[in-house]
């Protein structure tokens, strides 16, 4: 259970970072 909580937290961080990156890419396509 502890391992799963750690994995789910890491996945959340990864998704948030990716979401920020893709948002920036859409807002500023030429950067």
């Amino acid at each position, binding site marked *: 259970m502890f391992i799963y909580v750690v994995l*789910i937290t890491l996945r959340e961080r990864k*998704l948030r970072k*990716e*979401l920020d990156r*893709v948002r920036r890419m*859409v807002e500023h396509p030429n950067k």
Partner: protein
Amino acid sequence: MREKIIIGLAVVAAGLLAWNMNTIFTGLPDELNQGAIYRIIYFHVPANILGMLGFGLGMLLSIGYLVTKDLRYDALAASVTEVSLVFASIGLATGSIWARIIWGVWWAWDLRLTSWLVCWLIFGGYLMLRRAVDEPIQRARFAAVVSVLGSVNAYISYKSIEWWNTQHPQPVLSIRDGGGMAPGMEAPIYWNLLALACFSVILVMVRMRQESFAREIDTLRRMAHAQ
């Protein structure tokens, strides 16, 4: 609002678990034949109940998707199934530890254990299948079919200790006409079930949020490619 629900449930789950641990480890006597190891039942049974209920709920949500074609059902089914698989893993691990002490072996190829292991493998395959298929509609359809088939197996596993003579103990809970435990010893199982159920709802809510992040990322990527 979602954050407040998660925090509220976490407080309830932590409080219940702390109170239960105190009852289980300091308030209850050892069992006559098994000694202290019988206490593993307070984790083994709730974890397996949540696993089975979760697989059943996942099946209903998958049928919901197949009927309506609404991808929200699929996202919820995936979240519920993933969390249920974690609880099923805890059930298998705790059962194996108990078996080592009581039976002298880590594993027996008995109908209950084998059918539950097969169920665990099917739902492990369900999660692998979801990662392997990129197209969302196709992924949801394939996953829904696997979920329905896996849940039939979960039901067979649930009933196996009634239908066949298994090495696994017969039902002990009074709600399944078992009556094999003193009421004072049985109650903490339900309290632990409630605590772990609160915890599982938190995990499903977090997984649902991640599913919505993943959908948004997918939509934005498509927009970026279209530009």
